[in-house]
Structure formats: C-alpha cells, structure tokens
C-alpha cells in the first residue's frame, strides 16, 4: 500500500465515521453537468431526484451539485460527496465516466451510478435510455405529416447517441414515406438557444415542414410556431406549452422510476452493479401525448409501434438495413446488437451528407 492509498483510506475511514454519525438515513448524491434551470437534460434528472425525495420521505436524504465540469472538478465533487457520507451517487453525464471509476476505487463501500457510460466496477453501475425507440415514433409521425418530404433535424454533436437517433427516425420515416429526405444541421453546442432558433429557421426556409431536435431548448418550437405549418416534437421535457401545434408529440426523459428502484435497492441491501439500458417499456423513455393535429390513423399507427416496442416484439433496428455506402449491415430479420448501437457512428442507407468525424 503506497502513501496515496493510505491517505485515501484514512480519509475514507473519516467518511465512514461521518456517515455513521449521520443516523442511518440513506444519503443519495446527484452530480449534474448543467444547471437545473437548463430546462432539459439536467432539469429532468433533478425531477428524478425530487421524485426520490417524495417517494421515500424522511428515509432518504438527497444532495446535489449543479454545473459540474467534466474532469478534475467532477472527481473532487464526488470525493467530497463520498466523504460527507453519501451511500449512493448518481453521476448524470457521459464525461463523468473516468472520475466515477477513480472515486469508486477509493470508496469501495459507496455505490455509484453512471449515466450513459460503459465502464463498470463492483460498485459502479451504468444506466442509459433507449431514446432511439422514441425517435422511431417521431420518424413515423414525421414521415406521415410532411408534405414537402423534407424533414429537418437539429443535432448537437456527432456522438453515437445523436447519430443513433437520426438513423432511427430516418428508418421509420422512410418506411411510411419513401420520398422523405433529412436535412441535418449540427449545432456543435450542447446549449445555445439562439443558435437553435437560427438552425430551425434555416431548415424551415429550406423547405422542411417537420423539425426534429436533439437539443433541449424550445427555440425550434417557437420558430415553427411563427412559420405556421411546421410540426415539431418536444425533447427531454414534454414542451406541452407548444401543443397541440407545432408540438405534436415528444420524447420525455423519465429517470424517476429507475432512481427510486436503485435507492430502494440500497435501502434493502440488494444493490448490485448492473448495466441498464431501458426504453419505452419500463417508462424510462416517455412518449408525450400525440396531439389532435395528428390524424387518427397516424396516431393509431404510432401507438401500435409504441406497443410493439414496449412488448419487445419489434426492435427499431431490424434488418434488412444497409449502411450509407450500400454495404449490408443487418440481414432480413436480424436485430442490431447493443454494442454496435452504443458506438454507432455511421448513417444508414438513404441519408445524405456525412457524419462529421
């Protein structure tokens, strides 16, 4: 044992003492990458935290930290949380991956949950949502609703999560409308509402009459409302204030059931390291109300798709599917494996443009 681990374990011992002193309430920490007021990603995670508080009442104490930069600061924040006696820590951004693993090594008795990552340990679980299932629903509705056959897509950065969403939406839009085309704008920012507004406007001006977004602000909704006959979908939160038009449905991040389940596991002493990738079925991916602006038969078709995915009888990435360059990817009836989906950085056949590399 070198000096460093010695110090760490000394610190750890102190942490334990602190935890013991603070009664036996379970303490749950949340580390957020953005401010709670971002109205999107972090906002929804914090709703999950509040649901935990409401569900467990006095049995659980939650603490949180907003706007934590990915890197050294994240490691410090989590260490301090662990030192303060946290039993379970949710790290809610991909960039917290290495810090989580580092801190988890120092505190083997503290449980960690890391969102959207792929590194696990005995005391580190990972969890993520199959948002592409929701994208499939959006693609289907969008393919029906478009009259110009041009669907605009506002993407953030070219990471697998975003590419997967574009592919899933495109596949299902093409299925119901073979003439449909996607125009993709990469905003190259996680957060700049004004730029999202400009991107939406540019897409609308170039003929798009349905806008899909992988950015969290309502700016595209407002741009669509101004333009008139343009449809949009809520992202991250329901954005119901723009219903029934332009917002005709939405993908809602719903972390509450998972958070409650995991906290319960800690209370029961049954917590184990798991890899969770949940979709529509357990409710981690919520589909917001499909409004009356959508024709009844389209709505019925969308609901059938939702049901098929929820029951597991249908997977959005089912062959035959080719890659963009025409090389076969999935044979007839073959279903994409999670590994390929997790690292997806290619377009499927039919999409134009390239994934920025």
């Amino acid at each position, binding site marked *: 044992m070198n000096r460093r681990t010695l110090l760490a374990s000394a610190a750890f011992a102190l942490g334990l003492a602190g935890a013991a002193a603070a009664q036996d309430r379970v303490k749950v920490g949340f580390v957020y990458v953005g*401010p709670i*007021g971002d109205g999107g990603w972090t906002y929804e995670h914090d709703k999950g935290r509040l649901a935990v508080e409401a569900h467990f009442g006095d049995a659980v104490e939650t603490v949180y930290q907003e706007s934590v930069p990915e890197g050294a600061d994240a490691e410090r924040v989590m260490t301090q949380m662990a030192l303060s006696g946290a039993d379970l820590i949710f790290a809610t951004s991909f960039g917290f991956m290495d810090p989580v693993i580092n801190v988890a090594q120092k505190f083997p008795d503290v449980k960690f949950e890391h969102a959207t990552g792929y590194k696990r340990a005995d005391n580190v679980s990972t969890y993520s949502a199959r948002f592409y299932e929701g994208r499939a629903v959006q693609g289907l509705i969008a393919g029906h609703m478009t009259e110009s056959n041009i669907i605009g897509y506002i993407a953030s950065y070219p990471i697998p999560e975003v590419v997967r969403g574009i592919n899933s939406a495109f596949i299902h839009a093409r299925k119901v409308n073979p003439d449909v085309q996607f125009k993709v704008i*990469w905003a*190259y920012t996680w957060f700049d509402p004004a730029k999202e*507004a*400009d991107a939406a406007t*540019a897409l609308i001006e170039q*003929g798009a009459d349905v806008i899909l977004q992988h950015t969290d*602000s309502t700016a595209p909704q407002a741009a669509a409302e101004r333009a008139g006959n343009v449809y949009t979908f809520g992202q991250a939160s329901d954005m119901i204030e723009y219903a029934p038009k332009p917002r005709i449905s939405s993908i809602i991040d719903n972390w509450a059931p998972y958070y409650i389940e995991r906290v319960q596991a800690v209370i029961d002493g049954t917590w184990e390291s798991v890899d969770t990738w949940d979709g529509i079925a357990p409710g981690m991916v919520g589909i917001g109300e499909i409004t009356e602006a959508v024709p009844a038969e389209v709505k019925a078709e969308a609901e059938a798709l939702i049901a098929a995915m929820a029951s597991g009888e249908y997977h959005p990435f089912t062959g035959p599917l080719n890659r963009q360059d025409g090389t076969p990817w999935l044979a007839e009836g073959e279903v994409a494996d999670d590994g390929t989906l997790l690292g997806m950085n290619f377009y499927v056949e039919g999409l134009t443009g390239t994934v920025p590399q």
Partner: protein
Amino acid sequence: MDLGAINPAVLAASLMVAATPILLAAIGELVVEKSGVLNLGVEGMMITGAIVGFAIAVETGNPALGFLAAMAGGAALSLVFGILTQVLMSNQVATGLALTLFGLGFSALIGQGYVGVKPPALAKPDLGPLADIPVLGRVLFSHDLIVYLGLALVVAVWAFLRFTRPGLILRAVGENHDAAHALGYKVVRIRLAAIAFGGACAGLGGAYLSLMRVPQWTEGMTAGAGWIALAIVVFASWRAGRVLLGAYLFGGVAVLQLNLQAAGLAVPVELLSASPYLVTILVLVIISADRGRAALNAPASLGRVFHASS
C-alpha cells in the same frame, strides 16, 4: 448539395433578427466606451435583462412592460459597475468581469421559477402593403418592433455623437477626461449616464433573446452573445455605423453557415461553426491593414481611472 434552396432575401431577413441582440448590446457599449469606460460586463447585463424582462412579461402578461423592465434591470446592474469604477475608482476590466459573474448567478437565482414557461408574444406591426413588396418587403418590412428599434438606435447614437453638443461633450470626456474636467464638465456624472445607457441597451438585447428570438428562459441562455457584442465594438473601431456592419456581418455568417449545412455543403462542420469568428477577424484585418484610414480610433481615456485632483 442544394445551394439553390438558399433564398438570399430570406437569409437577409433572418440575419437581421439574429444580429439584433448583439447589435443592441454593442451600440450601448459603444456609447459607454466613447465616454472612456470599458465595461466587460455586457454578458452579465444581457442575461439580467433577459430574466428581468422575461419575469415581468410573464407576470404582467405584457411584453412591452417586460422590455422596459429589462432596460431598467440592465441599467440598474450597470450602475453597480458605475459606482465601483467611477466613485470608488476600481479597475474597470476586473469589475466588468466580476459583473458578468454576478449577473450570471443573480439571473439564475431570479429565474428559478420560470423554467419551462412560455412568455407572451409581442405583436408584430402590420406594415400592410409594404410587407408585400417582392424581396424588399421580406427583408425590410417583415420584422418585429425591436429590430427596427435597434436600427433606429444606431442612427440615433450616430447622430447624437456626431451632431449634438452632449455628444461632443461625451466624446471629449472619453478622449481626455482631465481636460473635460478642467472645462467644468461633470466627468463622473456623464460617465455614469453613459454606463446606464449601455446597461439598458444590453438588457434590451437580452430580453430580445428571452422574449422574442428564442423565446424561453434558461440559465446562461445568452451563451456568449455579450462577448461578441464587445468584439463588435472593437471591430467597429468605435463608430456607430460600423457597429451595424459588424453585427450584420457576424449574424449573417452565423445564419449562412447553418443554411449551408442544411443545404448539404461538403465543408467540415467545425470549420463552418468557426466561420463567424474567422470571417470577423479576417474582415477586421483587411480594414485595419488599410493605412489610409485612421483605423485606430479608440477613445484615448478608454479604461483609465479618472480622479478629480483639483
């Protein structure tokens, strides 16, 4: 690739909207800097204006009141800077940066209850037949009031600085505060007024973002627009007309690059994303390389501390 899908008239109309927040903030900052004060807190004042305007518009249901409140909020915050730098003679660069930090935090505190709320919309003026003129109608006569207000403000500031006596005094204070003081002008008072004007303009620009352009409240939603406004003032070498040019150039390239992406132009996205900044630098280099013109036009007392010793 389908560049034909880009309609220049439509593009021009969108760039006017996109440029308005930075134009408003920049024209205010121009007046501040003309008076010899460098306020780097534009971002902080913009975001404060954004939330104050948003909150008042939502509470009263009246967006016009929201805009007025945003101006008041921006001006009030700017006076914190004004008192620190003019009365207590603190360093302007550091105080301005502190103002940005404070404004970002303060706005987020006020805004906690306003996430996910949709603000009331400001009605667009109906310019009747003017808006139906081909091309020109779309570019010039299809906007909301604030866009026109921004343009009017540029003209007003230009005329004020150039033709009026108070404008002359303001410039004199910015060029040589000791001489202006010796002539009996109230340097500190004039500067405080200029700072408050700059704050009001920045607040208005912020509220334009939160009430019109986005419209939504989220923490940190100005996302650096205040910094661009500061750069535009320098770009303009402290001339009102060129503030307009700079804001439209920046806004134009920003909108154009998104349109080029949508049209499928095969240029790396990173390069397109960086293009508004690169083009602004490039144009400034070309302008300032032209030695025939007096490219360096910075107010001589800019950023210097004034203390009336006699």
